């Protein structure tokens, strides 16, 4: 089990935006968080991505209880990477964007270059390594941000509405990339969506209504 979550809530002031009584996420599978806008999907991703603490509740990550103090979260973030709905790339080349997480993990240069090439290849962006990231289209940005997340070899990949800001052609490509990542690398994937057809194509049996 990757995540074991119980009685999780998140409130801003008096307004509760998220209430999850129980949620279990198994290793190596794809899960969908389904719900309309404002259902708390992104908030839940932020919490399980260790980017913000819950108000109440318990989370076990790989059988260990999660302590939401900043010093304890930073090592956990090295295992879980989130790709945002509207991802932002650093103002530099695509190659350096992918290199960022690898440098943090002190991966040697030669190995870094190999991983970057492999990750870009997986999302069909190999020829864009030297391109300036801020000049890419929406679909290309989404693919590069998935490659950037993949490069650091996470245990869990969280995708917030991965196809909502791209054209139909790129939507199909991104869904296929996510399937491929899961099959090849056995990375657990949790994605949010309000589109049932995406659930059908990616996680027909494993979706959570929020």
């Amino acid at each position, binding site marked *: 089990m990757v995540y074991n979550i119980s009685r999780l809530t998140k409130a801003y002031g008096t307004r509760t935006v998220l209430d999850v009584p129980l949620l279990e996420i198994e290793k190596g599978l794809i899960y969908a968080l389904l719900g309309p806008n404002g259902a708390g999907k992104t908030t839940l991703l932020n919490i399980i*991505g260790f*980017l913000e603490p819950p108000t109440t509740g318990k989370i076990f990550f790989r059988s260990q209880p999660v302590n939401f103090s*900043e010093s304890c979260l*930073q090592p956990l*973030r*090295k295992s*879980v*990477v*989130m790709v*945002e709905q*509207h*991802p*932002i790339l*650093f*103002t530099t080349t695509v190659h350096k964007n992918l290199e*960022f*997480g690898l440098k*943090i*993990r002190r991966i040697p240069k030669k190995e870094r270059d190999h991983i970057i090439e492999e990750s870009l290849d997986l999302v069909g962006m190999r020829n864009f390594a030297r391109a300036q990231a*801020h000049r890419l289209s929406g679909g290309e940005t989404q693919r590069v941000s998935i490659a*950037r*997340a993949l490069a*650091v070899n996470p245990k869990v990949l969280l995708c917030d509405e991965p196809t909502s800001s791209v054209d139909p052609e790129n939507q199909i490509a991104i869904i296929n990339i996510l399937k491929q990542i899961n099959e090849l690398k056995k990375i657990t994937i949790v994605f949010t969506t309000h589109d049932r057809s995406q659930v059908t194509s990616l996680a027909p049996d494993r979706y959570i209504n929020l």
Partner: protein
Amino acid sequence: MDLLVDSFLSALLLVASMDPEMVSIVAVSLKVSATSTMLASLMGVPFGFLVAFESFPGKRLLITCLNTLLALPTVVIGLFVYAFISRRGILGPLDLLYTQKAMVIGQTILILPIVATFTIAAISRIDERYRKTAKTLGANRRQSAFVIFREARFGIVAAVIAAFGRVIAEVGISMMLGGNAKGFTRTMTTAMALEYDKGQFTLAVALGVILLVLSFGMNLLFHFFQGRTRG
């Protein structure tokens, strides 16, 4: 009109001949302004970055105070520094009055709020998603701060350029703390004021032309870096 045209033509000849007195004045101006800009940047950029990056009580009040300091008149700074470095001041024994060091102190105080507030503005403009992206990729606090700094780099350079542009054109501090001593603390602006008092316009106009060219260059650079910030 003839006076202006004649002065302008004579000034151009003076610039073309690289008059030694004029060159010395320009060199003093550039040296003092560059030193004060460097000092103000060394203090103002990290300070502005910390103010913008961190959350703490009284942050808005501090930014309001810094914005207020932008309007500080040069003569007020001149008087303030004079009170410290004059013979009767607590720093009197250091014998700083009417030296380039005194001018650097005053000018640094003048542009410190400019560097700090422009840095704060540059950092605050950076999309919050950069910090979140750095965090999710495993960056610690220092590494996330570096990402924000790198994204704001053009805005920060623009802050430094704006500060240099302000300081090279100021006259009050240079006059009050430098004393306009020939070959030593005479800057372009104080020399222009003196030449005007003497009724000799050639050197004043020549220095004015150089100052304008420098300001134009600074503005070109400023807009170049501002443009880079907007992507």
